[in-house]
C-alpha cells in the first residue's frame, strides 16, 4: 500500500503542477486554455526526444521541454488577441488535438501509435525499486514546491493584479497603460512552459508515452482540480489536484463492494460517481474549496 501511495502522490504532484500552471492562465488571467494536454504532451515528447533520440541528460530534456512549451504557448496565445472566453477554449482544445494527431502520425519523430520508450529516469543509479520510487516522488515534490513558491509569488505580486484585471475587463488595464497583449502572452507562455515541464517529469516517470497518453481526459482532470480547488487561488489549485486525484483513485476501491455488477457496469458506475462528486463539490462550493480572496495589501506604515 505504501508503494501505491507513493505512486499516487507522484502522479498527484504532476497534476498539482499542471493545475498551478492552469491557474496562472485561467484562474488569474481568465484565459480558457483547454489545451493543457497539448502543452503537457509537447513537453513529454520534447524531453523524450532530447534524452533518447539525441542522448542528452535529463536536465537538458527538462530545460528543452520548458523552452518548447513556452514557445508553443506564446504562439497559441497570440490567438488570444482576438479570441476570448469559450472561443479560446475551443481553439486551444484544437491545438491539443492537433498535437495528439502529430504524435500519432509523425512516426519519424514520435514513433507514432506504437509509443515512445524512455529509459532515462530522474533517479540516481543503484537505488532499489522502493527507494527509487521515493526518490522520484521527492524530485517531483521538490519541483512542485519550487513551482508553487514562484507562481504564488507572481500571483500575489502586482504582476498578478494586472493579470486579474485583464480577466475582469481588459479595456481598463489597457487604458491605464498596461500592455494587455504582452501580459496575456507572458501568462500563457509561463503556464504552458510549466505544463510542458510537468509533461517532461511525467514522461521520465512512466517511461512509455503514446499519443493516447495525451487525450482530453487529462485536461478535464486538470480543470476539475482547479475549479474544485478554487480558481485564482494557488493553494486552491494544489488542494484541488489532491482532492481530484483522491476521488479518482479512491473510487477504485468501491469495486469489491459491487461484486453483483458486471465489470463494465462497475467501471461505468465509477465514472458516474466521479462525475456526481465533482458536480456536488461545485454545487456546494461554487467558488471552490479555497476561494480567491482579494488581497488587502498591508496598510502602509
Amino acid at each position: 500500500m505504501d508503494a501505491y501511495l507513493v505512486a499516487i502522490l507522484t502522479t498527484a504532484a504532476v497534476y498539482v503542477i499542471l493545475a498551478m500552471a492552469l491557474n496562472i492562465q485561467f484562474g488569474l488571467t481568465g484565459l480558457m486554455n483547454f489545451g493543457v494536454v497539448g502543452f503537457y504532451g509537447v513537453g513529454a515528447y520534447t524531453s523524450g526526444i532530447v534524452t533518447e533520440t539525441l542522448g542528452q541528460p535529463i536536465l537538458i530534456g527538462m530545460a528543452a521541454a520548458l523552452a518548447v512549451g513556452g514557445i508553443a504557448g506564446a504562439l497559441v496565445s497570440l490567438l488570444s488577441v482576438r479570441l476570448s472566453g469559450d472561443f479560446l477554449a475551443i481553439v486551444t482544445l484544437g491545438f491539443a488535438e492537433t498535437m495528439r494527431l502529430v504524435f500519432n502520425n509523425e512516426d519519424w519523430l514520435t514513433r507514432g501509435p506504437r509509443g515512445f520508450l524512455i529509459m532515462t529516469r530522474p533517479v540516481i543509479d543503484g537505488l532499489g525499486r522502493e527507494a527509487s520510487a521515493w526518490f522520484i516522488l521527492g524530485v517531483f515534490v521538490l519541483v512542485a514546491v519550487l513551482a508553487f513558491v514562484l507562481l504564488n509569488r507572481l500571483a500575489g505580486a502586482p504582476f498578478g493584479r494586472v493579470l486579474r484585471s485583464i480577466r475582469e475587463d481588459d479595456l481598463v488595464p489597457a487604458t491605464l497603460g498596461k500592455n494587455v497583449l504582452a501580459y496575456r502572452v507572458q501568462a500563457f507562455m509561463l503556464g504552458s512552459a510549466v505544463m510542458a515541464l510537468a509533461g517532461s517529469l511525467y514522461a521520465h516517470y512512466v517511461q512509455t508515452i503514446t499519443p493516447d497518453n495525451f487525450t482530453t481526459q487529462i485536461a478535464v482532470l486538470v480543470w476539475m482540480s482547479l475549479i474544485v480547488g478554487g480558481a485564482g487561488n494557488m493553494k486552491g489549485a494544489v488542494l484541488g489536484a489532491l482532492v481530484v486525484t483522491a476521488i479518482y483513485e479512491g473510487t477504485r476501491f468501491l469495486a469489491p463492494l459491487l461484486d453483483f455488477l458486471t465489470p463494465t457496469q462497475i467501471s461505468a458506475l465509477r465514472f458516474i460517481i466521479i462525475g456526481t462528486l465533482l458536480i456536488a463539490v461545485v454545487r456546494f462550493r461554487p467558488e471552490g474549496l479555497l476561494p480567491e480572496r482579494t488581497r488587502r495589501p498591508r496598510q502602509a506604515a
Partner: protein
Amino acid sequence: RTGLAQSAPILIGSMTPLTGGGGPYGPEKSDAHRAVVAAVNSQGGVMGREVRLISEDSETNPEAAVRAARKLIDADKVSAILGTWASSVSLGIMPLCQEANVLQVFSGSSDYLPDGDTKGLIFNLQPLNKAWAVALADLAVQRGFTEVAFAGPKNDFAASMGESFATSMQKLGGSIVGEPFYYNPGQASYRAEAEHLIRMNPPAIFVAGYVTDFVPVYRELIRGGYTGQIITLSFAVGPAFKDAVGGAADGILHGSPVPPIGKDSYETYLRLVGIEPTGQVQNSFGCMAYDEMNLCLLGMEAAKSTDSLAVADAIRRIANGPGERVTTFAEGKALIEAGTEMNYDGASSSVDFQENGMLRSRDFALYEIKDGEDEIILTTTSDATL
C-alpha cells in the same frame, strides 16, 4: 467456499478495456477471466489457495492503465496482470510490471510488444501485425485479388500494417492500390474517408479496423456505391456488426487466425461463459482471455509458486509441450499431480510460444459471409518467427 485452505489467496489482476476504443471487446475478456477463476476456485483453487480476481478498467488508455496498474501492483500486490488489449496499454504498463516482476499475459498485435520485455515475463495470445499482413495478403491473392487497396485506423494495431501488407502482396506478385490509407479512429463520421476510397476505385479494399470504425466505414462504402470486394478482419464482423448492417453483410471476406470453431476447448470456453456455440466466429478476444487465465493459473500450479520468473518458465513448458494434451485447468492440475508432462491446447489457438513470449505460428483462414453466416473458404499458415 468449498473448503479452500485458509492460506492467503492468490491475487490476479484483470485489466480489460471496458471503456474507450476497446469497449466493445473488454466485457467478453473480463467475463472469460471471471468464469475461469470461478471454476478453478470451485475445484479447490491453485495450490489449494483461493484465486482472487481484481478487475480494473484500462479505459483503452495508457495513462489510465498505468494508474490502474499501480493500484494492482502496489496496493493489491497482484502476481500477474492479464487481459490488456491495446498494445499501447500493454506497453504502457510494461515498465511497471518489469520493475515489480509482475507477469503480463495479454493479447496484442503491435510488432513492438516484445521490445519492452527484458525478463521473459510477457506472453501474447494474439499473432503480431506482420503475421496478419502476411496471411491476409496470401489469402487475398489465393482468392484472386492481386490489386487491393489498404485502409486502416492509425492506431497501434493497424499503424504499420499497410506497409507490411504491401510488402507481402508484392512477394506474391500482387500490389496494393495507391498508398496505404490511414484514418483517425474514434471519429463520428467516416464519410469523407469512404468517399476517398471509392474514388480510388480499387477492385478490392482491405479494411483493417475494429468493429467501432469498421461499421461506419463499411456503411459509408456501401452507401457511397462501392461495389468491389471488401476484405476485413474477423473480429470486426462479429455479431454486433451483423446486427448493425443486417443483410448487407453478405459478400464480405474476412480473415483471422483460424478460430477454433468446432474445437472442443473453444466450445468448453463458450459454454463456460454461457454462450451456445453457433459454428460462427464468436468472442474472438474472449477465447484469448480464457487462455490467458488458464495458462497463468496452470503455470502457478506447476511452478508451485507465484514467483513470476518461475511461473513464466512453467508457462513456456506447459504451453509448448511436449506432453499430454490438456484443454482445461482441471485436466492440467490432474497431470501436475500425477507428475506427467503436458501440452496446453487453448480455446484461441494451440498456444505455442517463441522465446520472447510471442506466438510461434498460426493458421489463418479466410471466410465469406453468406446469408449472415461465416463460411470458411481458404486457410494458410503464417509463421511469425520469420
